[in-house]
């Protein structure tokens, strides 16, 4: 099969070299690459803001920058990382590239909308960057009122206009995935033969479609309140500042699952491929994704436990939030069981997947802790929360993203990455991550509030550890940028299926042709049917 590319002489990368052939492409694979470039840029930007924050916190006194500068730094770190990296990363890059390949389709259902989503994303990015370079925004990424509507003297409206627009790129992507998964599956590819990556993206797309309009409305109301003083959220005008928090978290809590569910899909693919096993309890893992997506909409009130909401509302939100832990635990147990009696190889994607399980387990357990009413009161808005959501969102989404990038790199580029450097980078990321964020759990229980520019002396040692960890983590994150770029020119040719993995995307050439498959694939087996693959290759 690897001779196809040579015979046809063309794949999606070589199908036109002009700038126009890229900027006006309707090929989902090219759009995925365009997204990868934009998203990498925002990841670096968000990382630089994070590093500024960690450097400031090296000493208890706020001595590196002004308080206002610091407040803008952590806000822009949050805004850029969440809205321009974590939410779009896996769906827009890996999802865009792989969803049509995995379901055996020629492209996504709406190729032009897909291209539009990239332009909308960049337009939103430029507007938000505009706000940043004009001086930034200091409200925190949560934009709590009435600070954001009345008291902040930063570029709040411009920022939320950027985020409002950005929501459309999410919606375009989600819409495309849902229609493609429903309508364009290859013959024989029934719902329960779909890869779990597709299930993860399907669940995510449902959240995107139902949740994103709510944040768009919320941000529009915020901009209106700030510009026109309508009295929606401002108590001085009869508004309710807590209403904003309800509206905001109705989307922004499910947004965490937008980040984590695709990543879980990636992990299922990697573990089964490198253990040469069917994913254990396929149906349970698939339904766990849907359960998390649904439950995720019912838990936003745990962000308001200390806001003065009623004790009974607290009870309901607490028990629902804790229940999300159950399908999450099911997934972890299933991934573990998938390795049982497998034939496990130690390639880089597998290291990322195992790292994901470790970090996700810590993030998940502390999440259930935080949902516990009596406990949350003490650590609410402290570094305990900061550590928790970084374990889930960064540990979860970025480990999945990097693992996925390494796993499918040969498919996307036709080249293998250098093994030594990639393993080193995976190790540095894991160690650096834990050194950065684990001390923050302790800091939080000690009582250090989040978003502090200076802090009492006794918190210093743990902050120094955290900053040291961030340095290691930064090195780990930057390395792939170099060795992956290097591999584009000097990497070994990958072949169509370097991992011996099962799935439609591995049945076409690397890189795939523009139309994805030379012949319409027909699916006859269950997902992850490694025994049959083995039988074929013998």
């Amino acid at each position, binding site marked *: 099969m690897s001779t196809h590319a040579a015979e046809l002489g063309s794949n999606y990368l070589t199908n036109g070299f002009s700038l126009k052939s890229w900027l006006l492409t309707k090929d989902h694979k090219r759009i995925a690459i365009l997204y990868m470039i934009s998203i990498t840029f925002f990841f670096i930007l968000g990382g630089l803001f994070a590093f500024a924050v960690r450097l400031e916190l090296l000493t208890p006194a*706020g001595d590196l920058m002004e308080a206002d500068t610091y407040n803008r730094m952590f806000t822009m770190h949050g805004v850029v990382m969440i809205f321009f990296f974590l939410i779009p990363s896996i769906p827009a890059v890996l999802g865009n590239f792989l969803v049509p390949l995995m379901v055996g389709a020629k492209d996504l259902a709406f190729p032009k909308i897909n291209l539009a989503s990239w332009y909308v994303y960049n337009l939103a990015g430029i507007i938000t960057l505009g706000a940043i370079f004009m001086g930034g925004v200091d409200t925190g990424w949560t934009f709590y009122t009435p600070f954001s509507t009345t*008291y902040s003297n930063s570029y709040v409206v411009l920022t939320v206009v950027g985020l409002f627009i950005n929501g459309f790129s999410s919606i375009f992507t989600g819409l495309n995935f849902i229609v493609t998964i429903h309508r364009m599956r290859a013959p024989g590819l029934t719902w329960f033969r779909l890869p779990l990556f597709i299930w993860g993206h399907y669940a995510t797309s449902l959240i995107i479609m139902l949740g994103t309009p709510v944040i768009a409305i919320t941000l529009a109301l915020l901009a209106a309140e700030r510009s026109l003083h309508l009295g929606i959220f401002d108590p001085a005008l009869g508004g309710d500042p807590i209403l904003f928090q309800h509206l905001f978290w109705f989307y922004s809590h499910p947004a965490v699952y937008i980040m984590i569910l695709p990543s879980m899909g990636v992990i299922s693919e990697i573990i089964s491929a490198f253990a040469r096993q069917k994913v254990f309890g396929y149906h349970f893992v698939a339904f766990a994704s849907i359960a998390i997506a649904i439950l995720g909409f019912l838990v936003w009130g745990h962000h308001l436990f200390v806001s003065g909401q009623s004790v009974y509302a607290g009870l309901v939100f607490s028990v629902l939030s804790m229940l999300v832990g159950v399908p999450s635990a099911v997934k972890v147990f299933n991934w573990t069981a998938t390795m049982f009696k497998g034939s*496990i190889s130690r390639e880089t994607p597998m290291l990322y997947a195992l790292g994901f399980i*470790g970090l996700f387990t810590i993030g998940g357990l502390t999440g259930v802790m935080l949902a516990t009413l009596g406990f949350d009161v003490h650590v609410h808005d*402290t570094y305990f929360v900061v550590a928790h959501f970084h374990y889930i969102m960064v540990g979860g989404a970025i480990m999945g993203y990097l693992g996925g990038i390494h796993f499918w790199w040969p498919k996307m580029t036709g080249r293998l990455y250098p093994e030594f450097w990639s393993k080193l980078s995976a190790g540095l990321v894991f160690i650096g991550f834990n050194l950065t964020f684990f001390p923050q759990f302790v800091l939080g229980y*000690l009582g250090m509030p989040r978003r502090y520019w200076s802090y009492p002396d006794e918190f210093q040692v743990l902050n120094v550890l955290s900053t040291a960890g961030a340095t290691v983590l930064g090195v780990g994150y930057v390395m792939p940028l170099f060795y992956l770029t290097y591999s584009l020119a000097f990497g070994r040719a990958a072949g169509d299926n370097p991992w011996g993995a099962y799935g439609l995307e591995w049945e076409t050439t690397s890189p795939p042709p523009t139309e994805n498959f030379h012949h319409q694939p027909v699916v006859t087996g269950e997902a992850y049917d490694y025994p049959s693959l083995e039988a074929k290759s013998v």
Partner: protein
Amino acid sequence: MWSDFPLFPRAASTIARDVDALYFVWVGISLFFFFFIAALITTFFISFRRRAGHQYGSAGDLKTLPLELTWSGIPLVITLVMFGWGAQVFFEASRTPADADSYFAVGKQWMWKFQHPEGVREINDLHIPVGRPIKLTMTSEDVIHSFYVPAFRVKKDVVPGRYSTVWFEATEPGRYHLFCAEFCGTEHSVMIGSVYALTPEDYETWLATGDTGPPVQVSGAELFDQLSCSTCHQGADQIDDGIRLARGPHLEGVFGTERTLVSGSTVVADESYIRNSIINPQSQIVAGWQPIMPTFKGQVTEEQINALIDYIKSLEVPQTAQQNVVAPPNASNAG
């Protein structure tokens, strides 16, 4: 050495021990599951590593349904048990003891202002006696702040336009950090104060040496006169020739009762209602009265409103005058 590298905060309130117990059990459960998963993965990673000529086994040897039910059921049970316990701790922490001493707190960019029932005012410091339940009634002058004393394990948002309450009973004398935990602007991180828990004797001494104004209730009563609230909301027995002179409802015994408004809806006369009636009096007129009260917006500070509330709370229904309270004047009389 551990003073530079603390791993655990001081526990200095009656609730702290309950929260810590919850924490330790959770940490125990988390460690167990983390190491359980880590041990399984490590074992599998080593025992099932890929070898040349390896015969593929299958996890399909495991029975799916019983395993799935087991590892869904165990987390579910643990979760529900811990939920129940956490809820119980939360209820305890939310239920203010009836005999708690009533203090007021106002958050403002970027300071904490406190009023003791005895009349002492403090900024950023709060002195309290140990062994007494203290109830803080809190509001904000501008943005949302959050009152947080880690050593007491208490935290409550302080929201403009509303009142929130928090209570705690210090068990150990000492000085404790008071943080603002909700981002509130430029100097959020220096909106730091101290809570001084003193023995009851030391507290009395401190009160005596401090700059004590009149008790909050008394200054509330003075304000009530100064602002001429008493002109309309005067005592229930001010009746001249059988015609009631009052142009507004009497406030004796009103606090905490349900009021029927002109719109027909009802509202409980709590702190927020009274505050709103002072700042924005036209919005919630009690049925049977004319909307004639002027706003006091901008004329009274949040602390003064607190004092007024404390005074109104203290007003009790005079035994002899109860029948007059329920009889509003007719409209022509009041107009």
